[in-house]
């Protein structure tokens, strides 16, 4: 029986609730309704009092689960959309992220952020927040690109003692399927070589992994072998895997769906340049969305984010074609 990405998240949460009495889920419409994307469907009946509807109060929702985590609970906070976590920003970056450093008391909290663009979602239901959260000390930021990672990394995240921002991509929710959930997944903090190659490296994460693979397939018709690295977690970042790949290919494209100013792709380029300048045969490149809010119309949206076609253009430039 195959599972979708969102079903894998549901399955992970169901198992977590069953395995640990400390786990609970808090968020808007997560109870009887089962969540805006049905990630908690049926769970409030199965686990009474542990899958709880919140008021529309992202700040207080985050503060509440932080306090609960300090008391030893392992809360999962579902933000209805990653975009709305901006309202909870203070609690996340100033309360949760500083807590261990200041007090020595850890906050075993997982914040699920339904992230990224889908056609017709517009400026406020499409954003990617991973770069913002990764900027702050004290947070782990993960960006699963596969069904297996959506499942395995969520299970790992909730059992971690540090706060984890779990950036799940809405575009992958229903079309991405897997036949089975691998139980021996890589741990958080390790990147994965999705596709090996020798001419150029694309370092990416989340939904863009699939766009990068499509671009690599398009170029393979002309004999180009593109290596695709899926970061899996953007913080901590697996620089070893990135550097090993760049040392094989000599060329780097850092690819992300989030806005272009600063962020994960800038971090990847700066680290590779600073620590592996001598490995590079060409100036490294970045490709992100455009520097505007995420547009509503599907035609505008498709042109706003990187696509296999625009990734191919970048790669051809990188390969001096």
């Amino acid at each position, binding site marked *: 029986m195959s599972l979708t990405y969102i079903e894998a998240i549901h399955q992970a949460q169901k198992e977590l609730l069953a395995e640990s009495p400390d786990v609970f889920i808090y968020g808007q419409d997560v109870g009887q309704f089962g969540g805006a994307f049905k990630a908690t469907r049926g769970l409030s009946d199965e686990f009474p009092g542990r899958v709880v509807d919140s008021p529309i*109060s992202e700040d207080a929702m985050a503060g509440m689960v932080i306090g609960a985590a300090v008391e030893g609970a392992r809360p999962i906070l579902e933000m209805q959309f990653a975009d709305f976590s901006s309202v909870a920003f*203070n609690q996340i970056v100033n*309360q949760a992220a500083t807590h261990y450093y200041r007090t020595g008391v850890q906050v075993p909290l997982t914040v699920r952020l339904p992230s990224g663009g889908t056609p017709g979602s517009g400026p406020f239901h499409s954003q990617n927040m991973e770069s913002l959260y990764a900027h702050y000390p004290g947070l782990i930021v993960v960006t699963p690109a596969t069904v297996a990672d959506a499942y395995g990394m969520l299970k790992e995240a909730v059992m971690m003692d540090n706060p984890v921002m779990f950036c799940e991509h809405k575009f992958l929710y229903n079309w991405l399927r897997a036949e089975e959930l691998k139980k021996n997944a890589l741990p958080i903090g390790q990147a994965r070589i999705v596709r090996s190659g020798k001419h150029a490296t694309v370092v990416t994460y989340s939904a863009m992994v699939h766009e990068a693979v499509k671009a690599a397939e398009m170029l393979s018709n002309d004999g180009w072998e593109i290596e695709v690295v899926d970061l899996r977690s953007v913080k901590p970042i697996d620089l070893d895997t990135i550097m090993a790949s760049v040392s094989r290919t000599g060329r780097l494209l850092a690819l992300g769906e989030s806005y272009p100013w600063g962020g994960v792709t800038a971090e990847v380029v700066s680290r590779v340049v600073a620590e592996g300048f001598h490995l590079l045969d060409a100036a490294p490149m970045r490709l992100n969305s455009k520097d505007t809010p995420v547009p509503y119309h599907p035609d505008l949206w498709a042109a706003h984010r990187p696509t296999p076609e625009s990734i191919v253009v970048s790669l051809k430039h990188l390969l001096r074609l």
Partner: protein
Amino acid sequence: MLQTDDAESLAQIHHGFRSMVTSRTLENKLSSLYKAGKIVGGVYLGKGQEAISAALGTVLERGKDVYAPLIRDQAGRTAFGEDLLDVTRTYLGKVTGPMRGRDGNIHRGRPTEGMPAMISHLGASLSYISGMLFARRMRGELHDAIGAATFGDGATSTGAFHEGLNLAAVEKLPVITLVVNNRFAYSTPNDRQFACENLVSRAEGYGVRGHHVDGTDFLKCMETMNIAAKAARAGEGPQLVVADVLRLCGHGEHDDAKYVPKNLWDESRDCMDVAEQQLLEKGFLTPDEIAAMKEDARLKVQKAVAVAQREPTPDPYQDDWSALGS
């Protein structure tokens, strides 16, 4: 009225007053140390707010209840059982303190002992303590424990305060929300902070019980806090307590508070004087006992400062520069 013939109530009154005396003594010392350049960072005092703060700290039980004090709650912290060394070590930036030099002054606490360390962003503690109580209730470990968080008039204007109180009300959590209206948020007077007649009227809007008390009247503060705590313990949900005082100092010791009109100073009364007079009049304490209390506080404060002053500050070469736990 308070059952003043009740031994437990008398013990409460003594405890509360003793905490006020200790707090005022300590804060006067901190002010001197600040002026002598001995403090790392700022000093923020609770002068004029000791009665209401101590009343709250007194009705809470350390080891059972949770208490999120704010900037002007030295009296409440002391009443709740905070070690004076936690205060002096943190103000002096000592590595031996609970914050180990990583945070300072009033941003201190012991979260696993029921006292979170405040962040500077006002209102944020209300949902935090609600979560602490929620977690305990979910595990069936709440029993009759309660939580309390304190705020000034300025904090009531934040979204976090509104969201937090509403959430606590929706969850019917046993939370005392204390708002001490000291008439100035830094320099901003009440008429630039809120437009309602009295902040306690907001209780109705949140669907919680409201209490209004003169924060300079120590015995009234004790009575009100006992009523609020009893109601919260009995499962009656959040209690909003609004206490009126005047801040008898600047926002911090760097601030001369010249913006406070002179007539306000002239009309104000110090809760310390009121409390002392009340206890003498009621015969709860004798002048000698009060004098002994003050002397005891002086010695304890002196010792806490002296001990902390001899201790080391953090060593940047030895400190663990990791923001994540293992």
